């Protein structure tokens, strides 16, 4: 090769092709994916995040939770995220539509910790204060015991998301974190979550993809077995829009 211009044009074409073929094409397909209106219940899905959960997403981002946690459930037949004898990271695999409510989409690529896409659904007590208390305790003292083992192995404590306050004879706050002995503060003190901890917990509790979109449901059934003539058996529903 001797010609600098040919070289430059080739270099340009390489990246232009990759950008147009991958990003632009994907944008054409997914860029305006709308919420889905349930024909019976007339609800719009996915539901937008609450204001506090939105703030929590920012805390999730700034603390770099994505370093160890994914937020994507692979479909049945690929990996063992859902289905029988699986880790049951969710009730179904994730669809592109699940993510249109998030302003920053962090699907992650590391599972040093468990997947969190449906953590709001998976928690031991799935309603109210109990869930929040569980998450506060997990963040403040992950090494504290729950039943036979620790709450979380290998996760660092996020004590800086909490404040330790002197009780000075007052009644403890209703928000105070209930901690087992040995992990709590000294007598006469209480541990309360900061606004950031509350937002983070609100965000984690909002993580649940429970609505199953009829348009995408077919994606979750494993690929049908091919018969002798190589034709796929009927049964796989073809997605109408925004599908794979």
């Amino acid at each position, binding site marked *: *090769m*001797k*010609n*600098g211009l040919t*070289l*430059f044009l*080739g*270099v340009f074409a*390489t*990246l232009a092709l*990759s*950008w147009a*073929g*991958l*990003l632009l094409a*994907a944008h054409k397909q*997914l*860029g305006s*994916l709308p919420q889905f209106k349930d024909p019976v219940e007339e609800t719009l899905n996915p539901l937008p995040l609450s204001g506090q959960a939105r703030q929590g997403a920012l805390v999730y*981002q*700034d603390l*770099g*939770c*994505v*370093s*160890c946690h994914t937020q*994507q459930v*692979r*479909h049945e037949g*690929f*990996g*063992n995220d859902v289905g029988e*004898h699986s*880790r049951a990271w969710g009730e179904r*695999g*994730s*669809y*592109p*539509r*699940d993510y*249109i409510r998030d*302003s*920053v*989409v*962090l699907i992650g*690529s590391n*599972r*040093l910790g*468990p997947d969190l896409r449906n953590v709001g659904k998976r928690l031991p007590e799935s309603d109210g204060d109990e869930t929040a208390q569980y998450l506060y305790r997990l963040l403040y003292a992950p090494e504290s015991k729950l039943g036979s*083992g*620790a709450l979380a*192995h*290998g*996760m*660092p*404590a*996020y*004590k*800086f998301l909490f404040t330790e306050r002197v009780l000075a004879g007052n009644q403890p706050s209703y928000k105070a974190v209930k901690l087992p002995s040995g992990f709590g503060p000294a007598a006469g003190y209480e541990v309360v979550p900061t606004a950031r901890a509350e937002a983070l917990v609100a965000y984690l509790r909002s993580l649940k993809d429970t609505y199953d979109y009829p348009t995408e449901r077919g994606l979750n059934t494993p690929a049908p077995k091919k018969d002798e003539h190589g034709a796929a058996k009927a049964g796989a529903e073809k997605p109408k829009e925004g599908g*794979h």
Partner: protein
Amino acid sequence: MNSTVSNSRAEQQEIDASAKWPVLVFLGSALLWLLLGGILQLAANMQLHTPALFAGCEWTTHGRLAPAAQNALVYGWGFNAAFAFGLWLMARLSATTLRHGGWLFVAAKFWNLGVTLGVGGILAGYSTSFDLLEMPRFVVLLLLVAYALIGVWAVTTFGIRNTENVYASQWYLLGAAFWFPWLYSIAQIMLFKTPVRGVLQPIVDAWYVSGLYGLWFVPMALAAIYYFLPKLLGKPVSNYFLAPLGFWWLVGATALAGGSRLIGAPVPVWIPTLGIVANMLLVLPLVVFVLNFLGTLRGSFGAIGRSLSLRFIVLSIAGFFLAAVLGLFLALRDVAAVTQFTLVEGLHDWLTLYACFSTAMFGAAYFYLPRLTGKVWRSSALTGVHFGATVLGIALLVIGMAGAGCTQAHRLADASVSFASITDALAGWHTLNSAAFGLLLIGHTAFFINFVWIACPINSRDTAVAEIPVPPTLTLATKEGHA
């Protein structure tokens, strides 16, 4: 190469003199980042087996330390080292001096200021959490302006070349010089300026990360290999006529290979499929590189022991093939179903950045520093420590990360194994990796001390003056495939 201009020692000296200070400034900053990034990386890895380590402080929680280390190594060490090497090689191969190098000091200042603010920003909580784009938005313009200055220098140096032919190393350098700013600005615009919606964001990020490794770091390493292999062995690249094919096929397929990072992800299935196909197409350029590199090395294995640069370059070739073959395996759907989200994937990226790219930069530095400064390496013990630590560190990390990844993959696939017991099973492997990162850090420190002795105006006074051997005869230099 054009026989009338290449390889005259006087002219090389003139080129080296013009490149001396910009190259030393870039390499010096690169080495400081290598040490800092190494310390951060070691600390972040130790947190994996000792979660309580530095967990009390918000700035040093694992989720911030790990990306800060990665960014310091990629943008601090990787880019500065590539700038130093790329500018020098471009001037040498274009047989022209590096003009008005003073502007490059300005660029170096801005670039390093940008990376400092970026890494600090991650630690302070301004991270965007997108892989390799974690640095906060306020440093982007700084980095792009600094890069523009550096890139323009490389391209104009190429533009005013005094050679007839354009050598393989120059294709890779010129390509990388254009690809990075395009990749980076497109990713910044699509993720932060006018953010795309939903899962398009991870698609953009995967495209950028794959491009950064495949179209910036790998081309830099290949430029070094194509230059130093014939240079240090004193013979032309064998089967050089295949090199253009290897180049176009490699970059064309790499540019489309990003989707393979999203196998199984909630994205349209054609994206990972395209990535898998593009990855499989990479087999052909690999064959070309085997013919080029191993063909040149054949019969000259005895020479490897005599040159430190050559030993690092051979290490880089090994790292390149290892990373490429691992990449092919990880792009297979059935393999990905098991290895996904484990440290095996981390191993692939680390191999590209360290075993392939960084070793090539070390090899290059051992060659050009004595020529730029006119001094010898003062301590051969320290160069030995550096090479030994690098080889041993790479070997340990390949074992450690592959072992950890396989343990993790095997247990994640079995739902009856509790998640906590996976974490416990990994602790030993993480400890091994920490030891390996520590070992690499020792090697880098040894290199840094030697660098100060050869390059620092004050500390290098007592260092002996180097005798640069006369380049090989012109009969070889006139042939294609010889730089």
